[in-house]
């Protein structure tokens, strides 16, 4: 039963990723694209959690954790660049 749920969830996340991708490519605003990539990162984190459950291991946990931290940094850096034309000042 959990397995079924996991499979359904995987497909749902796949669809979510497609949605993100669509927005990323479509835009139109740069903000939309950054948002899409940021959301994509969240979905990938979820996917990694899912993969961990499917495999029954916590091996991939750190990847998700680091991704959570790192995805934020790159999103913020993009935004900072667009706002200030500079990311370190």
């Amino acid at each position, binding site marked *: *039963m*959990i397995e*079924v*749920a*996991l499979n*359904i*969830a995987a497909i*749902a*996340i796949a*669809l*979510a*990723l497609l*949605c*993100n991708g*669509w*927005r990323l490519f479509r835009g*139109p*605003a*740069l*903000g*939309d694209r*950054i*948002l*899409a990539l*940021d*959301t994509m990162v*969240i*979905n990938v*984190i*979820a996917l990694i*959690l*899912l993969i*961990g*459950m499917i495999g*029954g291991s*916590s091996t991939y*946990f750190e990847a*998700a*954790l680091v991704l*959570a*931290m790192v*995805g*934020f940094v790159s*999103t*913020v850096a993009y*935004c*900072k660049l*667009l*706002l200030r034309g500079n990311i370190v000042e």
Partner: protein
Amino acid sequence: MIDAFAYLVAGLILLGAAFLLLGSWGLVRLPSTMERLHGPTMATTLGVGSLVLASMLHTRLQSGTWSTHELLILLFLFITTPVSANMIAKVHLHRQRMADIIEPAGIAGEPPNPGNGDWATFEAPRPSIATSTADLKRLPGD
């Protein structure tokens, strides 16, 4: 008991997946940048949140031990998602204000004035809000 537990896990998984999908669907479906910003919050909170819970319970179900580190993912996301959204909104506001970049204003239109002065994106923040470490260094008592 185990069965009920498994149902709970499966339910949480499905709930999480549903909100992840919904969040991303909102991103596709909603009309402009400001509206779309609301989607991912769902993905983070109830989406990832349910999955984290599911994962913790799942580990308990499988190996009989408690797994807690998943909570940290949630902690990180809870700290970072609002900031990401804030920054993207600021970018949107900034680019909207600049004459040469036409970004659709969205349903809510142009943001109203705060009353006294302007928003930080448009006007340099007062020194009363110390944010940079360079500023902090000069504070007394350090």
